[in-house]
């Protein structure tokens, strides 16, 4: 069985003084979040693939999640319908790095220009203003949600902005699902899909222009998600141009669009992928964590080169910069290669020998081929959504490249560790 080897000079290493302090009581936080939606230990355990005892041990403070179970804690946060900020609080309380280190709830978020362009594009999508906003791992779904909502309220008016967060649980029935959606939208008396549809239709029939942000569209039970998609599609069709939809998600949402032809809502949606941070965004992100004097061109250049636009690596690099360090500059890339989040990205992809061989070969290449809206190669696709590769302009159009040298090092190290474990 493969397990994480001791990572070399990771930002998580306590001796490097970069480990995260456990600021809140994990057990208390978990209990609070579970009580909020009346989730049972067995329910949580079933959803995240752990034993009930393990979850109970967490709740009672008898143990903390093992570091290899970080992804299960992320699943747990989704099941408990936590916001990005709450998810990061829970992870931090368990001693993990945040899942959404960039794009929290800061009011002066760095992607203001992009958000403005996003809404401008939405306006142009007449007569069906439906936009899918896809983001790779470690970005929120959507990132900078509050900023998006604030911009929407400014453009459409407070009352015309709805924020739908489909419940995560696959055990929720139609009544629970649409009751929750109705409550999120402020619709009274919604207890079925037809009631939800009727309530939303009343708003549109009154001539109102409604903006609806759907976070994490792909989560939850498939048939309920399809019902929601059908309602939104039907109302878009009937009230052409009135219902402006921003559907947010990641890999699973992309799969729904490109692999399942049944959701015609997604067929007629235009796709937008959350972009990598440019110099302006990097500067704004750095300014949030570092004193202004430290944010200079050299720092931004290093962040761009060493982190390759990966939000978690940027976060780790900024943390590293935030504390006095005796490290030489060239060590940053090596340090980032030990990031647990990179390792967690690689490990699930390497179970098959053939996949390991292909990834090993790719790790030696500068370019992994032509980028496309939907990558046909499943392995390449998973690398993309794990945020290990990205699309960058090349001589022949957009090309897929490893995000940065740290990612390639991490890949090589994970494969080497796997081989060692196998040997």
């Amino acid at each position, binding site marked *: 069985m493969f397990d994480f080897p001791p990572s070399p000079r990771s930002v998580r290493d306590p001796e490097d003084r970069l480990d995260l302090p456990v600021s809140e009581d994990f057990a208390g936080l978990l209990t609070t979040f579970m009580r909020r939606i009346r989730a049972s230990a067995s329910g949580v355990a079933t959803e995240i693939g752990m034993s009930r005892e393990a979850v109970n041990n967490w709740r009672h403070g008898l143990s903390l999640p093992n570091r290899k179970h970080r992804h299960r804690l992320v699943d747990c946060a989704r099941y408990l319908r936590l916001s990005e900020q709450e998810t990061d609080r829970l992870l931090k309380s368990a001693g993990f790095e945040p899942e959404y280190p960039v794009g929290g709830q800061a009011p002066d978020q760095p992607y203001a220009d992009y958000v403005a362009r996003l*809404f*401008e594009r*939405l*306006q*142009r*999508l*007449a*007569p*069906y203003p439906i936009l899918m906003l896809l983001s790779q791992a470690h970005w929120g779904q959507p990132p900078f949600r509050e900023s998006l909502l604030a911009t929407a309220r*400014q*453009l459409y008016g407070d009352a015309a902005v709805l924020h739908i967060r489909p419940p995560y649980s696959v055990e929720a029935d139609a009544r629970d699902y649409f009751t929750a959606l109705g409550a999120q939208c402020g619709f009274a008396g919604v207890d079925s899909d*037809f009631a939800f*549809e*009727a309530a939303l239709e009343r708003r549109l029939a009154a001539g109102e222009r409604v903006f609806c942000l759907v976070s994490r569209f792909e989560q939850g039970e498939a*048939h309920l998600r*399809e*019902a929601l*998609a*059908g*309602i939104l*599609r*039907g109302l*878009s*069709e*009937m009230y*052409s*141009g009135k219902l402006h939809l921003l559907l947010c998600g990641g890999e699973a949402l992309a799969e729904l*669009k*490109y*692999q*399942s*032809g*049944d959701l*015609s809502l997604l*067929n*007629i*949606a*235009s*796709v937008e992928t959350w972009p990598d941070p440019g110099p302006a965004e990097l500067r704004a992100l750095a300014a949030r964590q570092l004193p202004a004097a430290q944010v200079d061109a050299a720092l931004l250049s290093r962040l761009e080169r060493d982190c390759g636009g990966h939000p978690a690596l940027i976060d780790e690099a900024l943390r590293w910069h935030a504390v006095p360090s005796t490290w030489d500059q060239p060590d940053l890339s090596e340090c980032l290669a030990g990031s647990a989040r990179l390792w967690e990205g690689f490990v699930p992809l390497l179970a098959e020998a053939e996949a390991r061989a*292909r990834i090993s070969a790719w790790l030696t290449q500068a370019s992994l*081929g*032509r*980028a*496309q*809206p*939907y990558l*046909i*190669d*499943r392995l390449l696709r998973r690398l993309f959504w794990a945020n290990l590769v990205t699309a960058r302009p090349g001589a022949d*159009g*957009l090309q897929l490249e490893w995000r940065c040298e740290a990612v390639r090092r991490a890949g090589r190290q994970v494969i080497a560790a796997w081989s060692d474990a196998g040997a």
Partner: protein
Amino acid sequence: MSPARTIWLRRLAVAAVALFVGSALLLPQWNPLLSRLTESPTNLAWLSNGWSELQTARMHVTVYASERDEWPSDLAEAGVQPLGEIFELSLQPNDLVATVRATPRLDRVLHGHRVILHWDPQSQLWSCRAGDPPIPERYLPVNCHSEASLVGNTTRWLAIVLVLSLLVLLALAVLLIWRHPLIAPIQREPARLRRLPLALLPRVDTALGWLQRREATLAAAGVAAADWQEALGYARLNPSARARLLALRVAARCADSSGWNLPGAVYEWTFSAEMPVSLERCLVWLPPASVDGAQLVRHLRQAQTGLDVLLVFVPDAAAEAPLRVLCADRANLCVCLGPETQTAWLLEREALPVLLRAMARQLRLTRISPYQTRGGIARASSFFGRESLLARVVLREPSNYLLIGGRQLGKTSLMKAIERRLREHPQLACVYVVLRDHRLLPRLAAQSGLPLDSDLETIVAELRRQHGGKRLLLLIDEADPFFRADAARDYAEIAAMRALSEEGRCHFLLAGFWDLYAAAALDYQSPLRNFGEVIKVGGLEPEACRELASVPLAVLNLRFADPTLIERVVAQSGRRANLIAILCQECLESLEQGAAAIQAGDVERALASQAVLDALAGWGRLSHDEAASRLDRVIVYRVAAQGWTSLADLVALLRPRTSPDVESLRRSLARLQLAYVLDRSGERFVFAVPLFARQFEAAEIPVLLEEELRRLG
């Protein structure tokens, strides 16, 4: 002709006219036209000598006749010399005839002309009259003029004065029309009337009225009289009425918009579904005339107009220049409409092209794209072709239909077109329903306002009541999930639908993809087999493809630089309507600012764009059966690898790994054809859309094919 030459020619013409008019008034005898009508002084002088000769002859004849009381038999008898210097005299009974001699002293025209002096023996007085041919009356002595001629002479001169006056007036009028700074350009080019600043219209109207040229000018300019009156009254309207009048002309609904920190009034316009570009609403600002342009710009920069296009109706020409500079920047969403544009807006028969041209000049073209790249086409102006398919439904007696085709091929657009065409049908009402899951009846019940558990018969009865008792044609989109679920219930609802349609109360058009097709065309036991006529939706007709590519561009005054570029777009898209629209949209995206024509480079960039690849993706799971989908993918990778495949080729490919099921292969090939992924060419299958092959990297195809084959095995 060079300007200098024109100026000289003009000067010569003016000099000639001045000489002509001047000579006519002052020296008519030198005027080429009047010279024949006026007396020549030379003639008059010589003729006065002649009159003296005649006077002498008359005296001799008078003496002879009075003394002898008889008329002399010849002149010699009376002692008169017949040949004088001017006249040659002869006698007739009681008449003395004087004929002008052919002497060079007189004009040739007078030679041989005569005057007759008549002797009255009773009164012994002479009278005078013109001979034959007569000497022109103007040369005769006054006593030779008849009374009538004396009166006629006066009248003639008065007439000449009148005519000349009229000519002068006419010349002045012509001068006014052709040289007046307002009227002259309109008379030379009547269409200019539609481009005059709005404030000048009342003056032009007065001038045209005075010249009695209003109706003719309006007709020549193509302006309706009612529009003209409306435009004249525009200045007197309050801002709200102005905004509504302007909105009406572009078929927009106008509503007040409050909370703006802008001087003047702001309104919100909502355009109708027929708007040929992707603009559903906009803001309209009518600034007051009292604020100058620079101030308006300052206000505009400060205003937060969000993401809406803002139309600025500039009050006067003075304010226009600064605003136009601001609006010329395509990065903002402001459109400046100057006084001339406002006139065009009010006077053109169609105001919408005026708005579209102004927006095309001042906004990014992608903001007002005329192409709809996704979803069912709702605008009639954006729907092209499919006439034969439409005719099969619209021009026949109502029946049941199964509309079958892959996604984004145009099923919904066709249904919406059917709905539009049948909207005014006297006996048939169309109801369009989009299914969002398998539940048809609850969906119909909700739409007709009935309890969700109502049965089909009740629902149809209610819908007929709502549509005045007309027969119904239910257009049911996204019918695959319904059909799958109904198949599991032994087609209970299909049977009910068939019963209703046989009674003629309601007919159905079901749109879907594979499940519908497989049951209707491939399954001989399915009750759907005879349920209705199958209509397959595939590529657009070639001519409709060309129209789809070119007509929307013309809305924005754009075009393809070369017709072969349109052919390339049509060929590469495989005549898929949404791909053509996407390609044209991408061409617009790459069009340089101010360019009016799409070039070959723009087309090539569009063909390689991510938007096209995005539209082509999504063929990997055409069936809910994972094994069938895998077989589909094997076939697609095989075609990508070698450019074609066939049933025999596929059997040979699969045989080393598994025993191939030919029926499954045939169904896969049928499915891929229906999805417009493959097209049949004889025994071979190739990609229906040439662009489809661009999805695949040569190096990855063997890997992908091998992976699918391994899983299949």
